[in-house]
């Protein structure tokens, strides 16, 4: 007897591929938002499974805050090159100049909020009607509430009190001109699922996910990389630590964790034993208020 049962990773994989193909089937001008982090790298891997031997029916789009880890940017360019797919990069720096935006000030001045402006401009420029993203519901409370096909108005706003019903595996991507849909194919994956999948599929990642030595400062219990983008005060002590990144965001708002994990295997052991959540441990931008993510999403953020 052959075994006709799919294991959980196969089920999650098939669900994600199905969603990616629904995007291809329902929209005129979709895009895949690519950050260079493990979740969007996983999305690209899933897109290869969904569309090869054909080309992707969408470009990869990166909203570059100018505060990225250089390792992630190099990886982004290499990956796009290797798979031969189109990469669109739009810079927050340019939006700041052309739209006269005010940059936040402070020690860890983050362009996270400003990213939304560039994203919305990019959507307008290319008339994207669907943007695929690597957000997961286990990351954060507001994300736990969002549909897989999440309709945004022409200002990119999410209305959490008026979400469309989403039944079975039937996705309704019908929108008015000017609106767009954010699509989250790996909504149902957890951090552990992503790592187990990366191991199983042997997916390459930027080096900063693995243990390396780095100059950091300690701030409220979190380790922040020394870079041109943060302000060093006299009281700051620069420490050399063996660290790795559990998530990859901006250098200003992503904290490193002390770790000697140098293989995927080590990382899986480490996160299985961890006592803190991914965003709790590594994101400086979520702690502002209990509803930080909800507010950003309402304003057009991913």
């Amino acid at each position, binding site marked *: 007897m052959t075994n006709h049962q799919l294991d959980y990773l196969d089920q999650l994989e098939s669900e994600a591929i199905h969603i990616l*193909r629904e995007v291809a089937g329902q929209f005129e001008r979709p895009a895949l938002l690519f950050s260079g982090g493990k979740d969007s790298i996983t999305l690209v891997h899933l897109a290869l499974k969904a569309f090869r*031997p054909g080309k992707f029916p969408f470009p990869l789009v990166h909203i570059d805050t100018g505060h990225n880890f250089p390792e992630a940017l190099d990886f982004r360019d290499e990956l796009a090159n290797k798979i031969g797919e189109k990469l669109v990069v739009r810079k927050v720096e340019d939006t700041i100049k052309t739209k006269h935006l005010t940059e936040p000030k402070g020690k860890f001045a983050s362009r996270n909020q400003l990213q939304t402006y560039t994203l919305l401009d990019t959507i307008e420029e290319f008339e994207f009607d669907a943007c695929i993203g690597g957000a997961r519901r286990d990351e954060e409370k507001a994300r736990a509430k969002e549909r897989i096909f999440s309709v945004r108005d022409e200002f990119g706003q999410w209305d959490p009190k008026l979400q469309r019903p989403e039944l079975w595996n039937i996705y309704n991507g019908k929108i008015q001109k000017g609106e767009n849909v954010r699509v989250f194919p790996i909504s149902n994956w957890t951090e552990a699922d992503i790592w187990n999948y990366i191991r199983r599929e042997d997916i390459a990642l930027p080096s900063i996910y693995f243990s390396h030595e780095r100059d950091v400062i300690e701030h409220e219990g979190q380790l922040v990389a020394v870079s041109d983008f943060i302000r060093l005060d006299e009281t700051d002590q620069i420490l050399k630590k063996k660290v790795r990144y559990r998530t990859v965001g901006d250098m200003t708002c992503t904290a490193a964790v002390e770790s000697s994990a140098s293989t995927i295997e080590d990382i899986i052991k480490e996160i299985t034993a961890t006592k803190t959540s991914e965003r709790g441990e590594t994101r400086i931008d979520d702690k502002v208020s209990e509803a930080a993510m909800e507010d950003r999403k309402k304003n057009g953020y991913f």
Partner: protein
Amino acid sequence: MDLLRFITAGSVDDGKSTLIGRLLFDSKNILVDQLEALERQSKNREDGEIDLALLTDGLRAEREQGITIDVAYKYFSTPKRKFIIADAPGHIQYTRNMITGASNADLIIILIDARNGVAEQTRRHSIIASLLKIPHVIIAVNKMDLVNYSQDIFNNILIDYAEIARSLDLPDVTYIPISALKGDNIVDRSLSLSWYDGQTLLDVLENVRVENDVNLTDARFPVQYIIRPQTDELHDYRGYAGKIISGIYKKGDEIIVLPSLFNSKIKSIEFGGKELNEAFATQSVILQLEDDIDISRGDMIVKNDHQPRVEQELNVLLCWMDNKPLVAGNKYLLQINSRRVRSSVKEIEFKLDVNTLEKNYDPAQASLNDIVKAKIKAASPIPFDSYKELRANGGAILIDETSNVTVAACMIQ
């Protein structure tokens, strides 16, 4: 390891969010920083105890009002299984969000407050469980601590509910007395409920059999997208991309394309750049056929045996989910899997009274949250199965073409 998707339902204040919080807490799936955030938030409360319900209520409005508005998905695992929980709203106003969470569930936990017994929402959620054919039902009689862990009270609720289960034809119902607040019979056995010798909630969740819920007999492959590389070496390549929603396909199988009725044979089954000899539900694959025939998105590739029905007139049970009422004669887009067809609701035959389960014939219209039986006429033939027989090919949605909103869930009969 396998995966169980379940939903929690029940009236407002029956303790759904507390139950999920308890389940995650006692199975050690809450992390330190999440717990600290809970403690911070719970400080504003008068009793000062950690409020596990805050773990799932994610929106500002939900925390302000202390109710759940939309489904929140939560994830946890034990060494035996992975779980996806849909924490659904109990308030009647948000039933459509509950249906969203219920549509993919393998199991539903319906909470009943031991002090109140079977309530209107218990009936409503049971009807939805029955309509959506959720294979397994757990009746969790909660707040047993507030009725002195009384066996009589539990038994009376069990007798009341058994009547509902019978009339709704619910196949597999398990009854468990619990206290989500105190942690009785959630993960650990309760000393206060020593008269109960059944399984704890987690026992049931870990052991309920789900592998039989996938149909491997009736082969259904809705085409989502056509892959045409148009390169020099793959000049004539046409791959039909889709997910096998039920059944098994083998290389060489004779197939029929619906609704066009073209015949062909499977030339290859591909996945991730590799050729497979066979593929089965619910794998996403690419099929190539021997013959170059006209197939587009929304068509269905089936086999000679166990074919679906292909018709234009459908009888459906329908949950209406829009604020504007459904009036017979209205036109909508009907979407079933990847197929979208213009259609019209010809007739509303009866409306179901959720309290008495009585059928009220010839209603003037259907309003938000009403469950009705209706006749739908589609503009072109649709390959479908009865929802009862094959969930994966018997569920459809209606889309209002003027607002683009999903306004109804249809279970085809």
